[in-house]
C-alpha cells in the first residue's frame, strides 16, 4: 500500500487573499490587520481584525452546476462555512485533478467512495441579524419571556437557521459538491483544529480507507459574539497605536490576539498516485502528532509539556531528528503564557536544536485565524520554501527574553534543507504538530 502521503493542492481564503496572497504578505511583511469593517466594532475593547476581503467567491472556478448549487445555498452557510467551502474548492482546483465537463459527474477520474475530508471547525455563533426579527416580535422592555419567544419569536426565525451554523456543514457542502463519499469528519479542537484534521486525514489514508482526502480548517473570529467572548477572556489585543503593529508573536511587548478569519485546505494523495498523474507536489506529510494540555481549560502548561508531546510524536512519526529540521512555523498567539509555554515545549522537544533552528510565526501578518491557522501556516511554509527563505516574525521587534528559541526577527533567513515543523495549540486543550518535507 502507498503510505507516503503528499500535498498536491493548497486552497486558502485569508485576510491576505488566496494562497499566493498570503505568501506575498508573509514574504513582504505586510500586515493585513485593520479596523473591522464588517460591522461597527468601535464599542468592543478590541475593534481591529484580520478580515477576509469581501470579494472572495466560493463558486470561483468551479463547474456551472456547482456554481448554481453554491449560489442557491449561500444563504444557509454562515461565513465560516462559505470560507471553508471556498478553500476546499481552491485546493481541488490547485491539485490539477480533472474536474470533468458539465455533462459528467465531478472529478471523473477518481473513486468517489474513497475520497473524504476532515475539517477543523468551530461552534459557529449565531448571525445576529437572524435574531433581530424574532427578538423584536417577542421582547418586552428589553427582555424576552420564553412563552413569548415560543409564540411570537420562533415563527419569525429563518427556518434553516440551525443548519446555517452547524460545524459539520463545511464538510457536508464540500462533499455534496464534489461527490465525496468517503469518511467525513469535523473536529472542533479550536486553534488546533486544522492540524488535528491533517493528522486524522493522514491516518485515515494510512489505514487504507481513502485514497484522497481534503484536510481543512475554517473559522471566523471576526464576529460580535466572539469579539465579546475573547474580550471578556482578556485574549484580544488592545492599546496598539496602529492596527498593523497590534499582533506581536513572541515579542516582549505583546498585546494579545488580533481576531482574524480564514480557511486553509490541503489536498492529500498517495505519492505514487500523484506522481503517476504528473501532479505538482507541494510537500510530503512525513508525520503528525496530537496531544493535549492538562493545566486547565483557560490556561496552558507552563512547562510546555503538551506542546512537547505533540511535537515529539510528529517527529517520531516522521522518523526525523530535531537537528534535521530546517524551520519551525510556530503557533505564536501573542499571549504571554501561551507564547512562553509553546517556547518551553519546543525547547523540550527539540533539545539543543532549539537554539539553532529558525523559528517563525505568521500571526503578526494575519492575526489569529482560529482553526484555520495551523494549515494556513503550513500553506505559507510550502510556498516560502520555494523562495528558499524563512520569513521574519512581523512585529516581533524585541523578542521576549523568556523565549529561548532562534526567532527569525527583522530579516528573512536562508533556509537550509527541506524539513519543516508546524505547530498549533488550543488554549487549555489540544496540541498538534506536523512535519513536512517541502518540495523546493
Amino acid at each position, binding site marked *: 500500500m502507498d503510505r507516503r502521503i503528499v500535498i498536491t493542492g493548497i486552497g486558502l481564503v485569508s485576510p491576505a487573499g488566496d494562497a499566493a496572497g498570503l505568501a506575498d504578505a508573509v514574504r513582504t511583511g505586510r500586515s493585513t490587520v485593520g479596523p473591522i469593517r464588517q460591522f461597527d466594532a468601535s464599542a468592543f475593547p478590541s475593534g481591529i481584525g484580520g478580515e477576509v476581503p469581501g470579494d472572495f467567491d466560493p463558486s470561483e472556478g468551479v463547474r456551472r452546476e456547482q456554481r448554481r448549487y453554491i449560489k442557491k445555498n449561500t444563504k444557509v452557510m454562515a461565513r465560516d462555512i462559505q470560507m471553508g467551502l471556498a478553500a476546499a474548492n481552491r485546493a481541488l482546483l490547485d491539485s490539477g485533478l480533472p474536474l470533468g465537463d458539465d455533462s459528467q459527474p465531478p472529478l471523473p477520474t477518481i473513486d468517489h467512495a474513497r475520497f473524504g475530508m476532515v475539517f477543523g471547525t468551530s461552534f459557529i455563533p449565531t448571525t445576529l441579524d437572524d435574531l433581530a426579527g424574532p427578538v423584536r416580535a417577542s421582547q418586552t422592555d428589553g427582555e*424576552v419571556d420564553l412563552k413569548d419567544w415560543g409564540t411570537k419569536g420562533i415563527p419569525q426565525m429563518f427556518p434553516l437557521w440551525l443548519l446555517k451554523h452547524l460545524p*459539520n456543514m463545511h464538510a457536508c457542502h464540500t462533499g455534496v459538491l464534489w461527490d465525496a463519499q468517503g469518511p467525513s469528519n469535523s473536529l472542533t479542537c479550536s486553534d488546533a483544529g486544522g492540524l488535528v484534521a491533517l493528522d486524522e486525514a493522514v491516518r485515515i489514508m494510512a489505514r487504507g480507507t481513502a485514497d484522497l482526502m481534503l484536510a481543512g480548517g475554517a473559522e471566523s473570529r471576526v464576529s460580535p459574539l466572539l469579539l465579546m467572548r475573547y474580550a471578556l477572556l482578556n485574549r484580544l489585543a488592545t492599546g496598539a497605536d496602529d492596527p498593523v503593529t497590534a499582533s506581536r508573536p513572541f515579542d516582549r511587548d505583546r498585546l494579545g490576539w488580533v481576531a482574524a478569519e480564514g480557511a486553509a485546505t490541503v489536498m492529500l494523495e498517495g505519492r505514487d498516485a500523484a506522481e503517476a498523474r504528473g501532479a505538482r507536489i507541494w510537500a510530503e506529510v512525513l508525520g503528525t502528532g496530537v496531544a*493535549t494540555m492538562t493545566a486547565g481549560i483557560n490556561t496552558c502548561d507552563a512547562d510546555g509539556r503538551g506542546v512537547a508531546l505533540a511535537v515529539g510524536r510528529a517527529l517520531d512519526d516522521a522518523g526525523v531528528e530535531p537537528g534535521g529540521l530546517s524551520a519551525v512555523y510556530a503557533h505564536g498567539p501573542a499571549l504571554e503564557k501561551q507564547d512562553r509555554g509553546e517556547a518551553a515545549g519546543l525547547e523540550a522537544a527539540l533539545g539543543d536544536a532549539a537554539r539553532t533552528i529558525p523559528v517563525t510565526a505568521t500571526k503578526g501578518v494575519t492575526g489569529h485565524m482560529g482553526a484555520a491557522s495551523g494549515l494556513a501556516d503550513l500553506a505559507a511554509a510550502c510556498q516560502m520554501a520555494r523562495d528558499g527563505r524563512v520569513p521574519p516574525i512581523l512585529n516581533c521587534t524585541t523578542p521576549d527574553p523568556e523565549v529561548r528559541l532562534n526567532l527569525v526577527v527583522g530579516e528573512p533567513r536562508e533556509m537550509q534543507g527541506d524539513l519543516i515543523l508546524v505547530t498549533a495549540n488550543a488554549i487549555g486543550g489540544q496540541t498538534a504538530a506536523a512535519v513536512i518535507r517541502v518540495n523546493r
Partner: protein
Amino acid sequence: MTRRIVITGIGTANPLGMTVEGSWEALLAGKSGIRPIFIFDASAFPTTFASQVADFDLAEYVRDPDEFARAGRNVRFAMAAGRQAMENAGLFGRTDVDTDRFGIYLGSGEGVLDFPTLVHSIAVSLTDSGTIDTVRFAEAGLQRYDAFSELEQEPNMPANHLAHEYGLRGPAYSCLTACAASTQALGEAMDLIRTGRADLMLSGGTHSMIHPLGVTGFNLLTAISTEPKDEPWRASRPFDRDRGGFVLGEGSTIMVLEELEHARARGATIWAELVGFGTSADAYRMTDIHPEGRGPAAAMQMALDDAGVAPADIDYISAHGTGTQENDKVETLAIKLVFGDEAPKTPVSSVKSALGHLIAAAGATELMTCVLAIRDQRLPPTLNLDTPDPDCDLDYVPHTARQVKVEVCLSNSFGFGGQNDCLVVRRFVP
C-alpha cells in the same frame, strides 16, 4: 501484529439513569425517559417535551466542583460518565498507568448558550431598519455576558476538562458530526489504539441541545416530534407508521477503550471487543438522506469488512432509528441492501424510542446497550411500535425486551449533513 481493542470501562449519565446497570434495567423494562421539559419554560414552544437527565450532584464525580461552576450540561454529563468509566475500568486513582499513552476522543456538543443575555443584548440594539446596532450590542453584552460561561460553550470543553481532571496527555480529539459524532469518535479512537498511537482512550460522547435555541432550531426544521403533548412518552415511535420525528434527549456515555495486552497485563475486566468501524458520507443533500441508503449501506459494509464478519454473524442491529419518516425508511432499505436474505432474520431495535435522541452522545449510548445485550443475551425493545409501516418491514423487537443469543452487534449512527458511522462489537473471546 494486529492490536485488538477491548472495552474495559463504561460510564453513563442519561435520561434513564446515572448508572450503566440502572439505565439498562429501565430500558429492558420498557421505561421511557421522555417528559415535559423542566430545564426551561418550553410550554409555548411547538415541542414541549424531551428526554432529560435528572438533577445530580456533580461533587460525587469530580475533585473540585468549583471548577465547574460555569460548565454546561455537556461538561457535567461527561464528568459523571467519565468518572464512572474510570472507576469501572479500575483506573481511577491508579498512578501506574502511562498517562502519555492515554488519550481522549469525544463526540461533543456545545455548552448551553446564554439565551437570556443574547436576546437581551439584541433587544436593546434593534434598529428601525430591522438590523442590530453592534455598538449598543457590545455595550449591553459586555455588561451581562460572563467570560467563563462563554468559554464553556466551546465544544472541546468536555475533552479539556477530562484531560485536566485525570491528567491524560495522550492524543486528544473532539468532533461534532451531529448525530454520528460519538460513533465516529469511538471508531477513530479505536484506530488510534490500533495504530499504536495510544494504549488507552477515554471515548464516547456528550451533548445537550435541550436549550431554547436548540429546541427552536429543530422545531424550525420540523425534525422533532410535537405530539402527543399529554403523553410525551408516546412521541418517539421509530419504525411506526405514524412516527412524527425524533424526541430530543441529552446525556453522555463514555468508555475506556484499551489495547488487549495492556488490559490483560493489568488484569482488567473486559466487557467486549470492538472489532469493526465503518465511516462514509452521503454526499447527497444538506438534510435529506440519499434515497437508496447509499451512504449508510457503505458504512455498514465497511464496518462488517473491518470486523471480518458476514451479515449472518450479526445477532442484533442497534438502529440509528430516529423516528423521522425518512430515516427509518432509508435505514431499513440500507440494512436490506447490506444484509440481503439475512435482513428479515436479524433483530433491529431503536433505543431512541425510550431515551430520545442524545445527538452527539447517541452513538456511544447505543453502543453501551449493545455491550449489555451481549452480556445479558437480551435485546432492548423499540417502544411505541404500534402500527407497522409497509416500508419498515424488519424485525424491530417491538414493545418488550427479548431473550436471544447475542454474540456480535452492529451499531448504526447517521448524522445530519450526511456522515454515516457504524461499529461492530463482539463478545470477547480470548
